[in-house]
């Protein structure tokens, strides 16, 4: 029954005993484990918030309008990612390539913006060893930037494989899996943007 379903959907994939495709189940479990990774990094930032004995402090260097543009860029990339998935599922390879490359380009804009932000912070005296804020901030946002960079490589690989005919309407599970990963880095940024940038001293003043 499961083998016939596999052929019916046109996917060269395996199904778990629940009938769900194994790679997709594995991706969701991986993303669930990633929640713990980023939860740990965000919690570490919160635990040491306000504990730096020397500056610069968040209020001295955060540029909210600039970071807001980065947040919009990453949100826009989530839209182009779902449009790419929608295009490949319709068999529209041209639009798929346009949307997937647009997503990769938006990802590069985000990472480029992060590199510029890191450089600016460094020039203003904040390094990873400067104080607890620098250590926890660069570790958290650096890990997120690394995830975005891996996502960009996967997006470019998908565009290349589509050109080779290895990813198409019948074999689109890999696009869906990369899409899940890409949306995950977006939701992590949604949390980082609010908790780290917009409410920098929230936990210690909550309820006051």
């Amino acid at each position: 029954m499961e083998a016939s379903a596999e052929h019916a959907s046109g996917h060269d994939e395996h199904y778990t005993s629940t009938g769900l495709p194994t790679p997709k189940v594995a991706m969701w479990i991986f993303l669930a484990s990633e929640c713990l990774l980023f939860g740990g990094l965000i919690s570490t930032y919160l635990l040491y918030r306000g504990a730096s004995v020397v500056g610069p402090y968040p209020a001295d260097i955060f540029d909210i309008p600039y970071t807001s543009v980065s947040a919009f860029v990453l949100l826009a990339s989530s839209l182009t990612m779902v449009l790419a998935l929608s295009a490949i599922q319709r068999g529209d390879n041209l639009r798929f390539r346009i949307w997937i490359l647009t997503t990769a380009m938006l990802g590069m804009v985000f990472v480029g913006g992060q590199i510029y932000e890191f450089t600016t912070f460094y020039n203003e005296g904040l390094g990873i060893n400067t104080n607890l804020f620098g250590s926890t901030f660069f570790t958290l946002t650096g890990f997120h930037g690394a995830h975005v960079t891996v996502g960009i490589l996967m997006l470019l690989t998908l565009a290349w494989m589509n050109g080779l005919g290895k990813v198409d309407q019948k074999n689109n599970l890999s696009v869906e899996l990369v899409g899940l990963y890409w949306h995950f880095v977006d939701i992590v940024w949604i949390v980082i943007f609010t908790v780290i940038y917009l409410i920098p001293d929230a936990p210690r003043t909550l309820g006051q």
Partner: protein
Amino acid sequence: MSEEQHESQSHAHPEQWEYIKIALILGVLTAAEVALSYMDVGRTIQIFGLLAMMIIKFMLVVLWFMHLKFDSPGYGKAFTFGVALTATVYGAVLITFGVFQ
């Protein structure tokens, strides 16, 4: 698990205009978050407002863009377990160390 069920799990996704609508809502919420962070409305209201909008944005992306609203509940259970475990474990740590005091 029938072939029809496999098919419906794989392809019952929203139309493109619905994705664009969700993206516009996300954009408006982000703009509202930034605006609220500059408003002098009292620290408690500001923080709870920002956290509420963050959770709404999180849910919109997970339910629509990641298709949890339309896919098999099994995926949602796996991800919810991860999120709940994260909130419980690190919530306990943050409370223990008095971060919310």
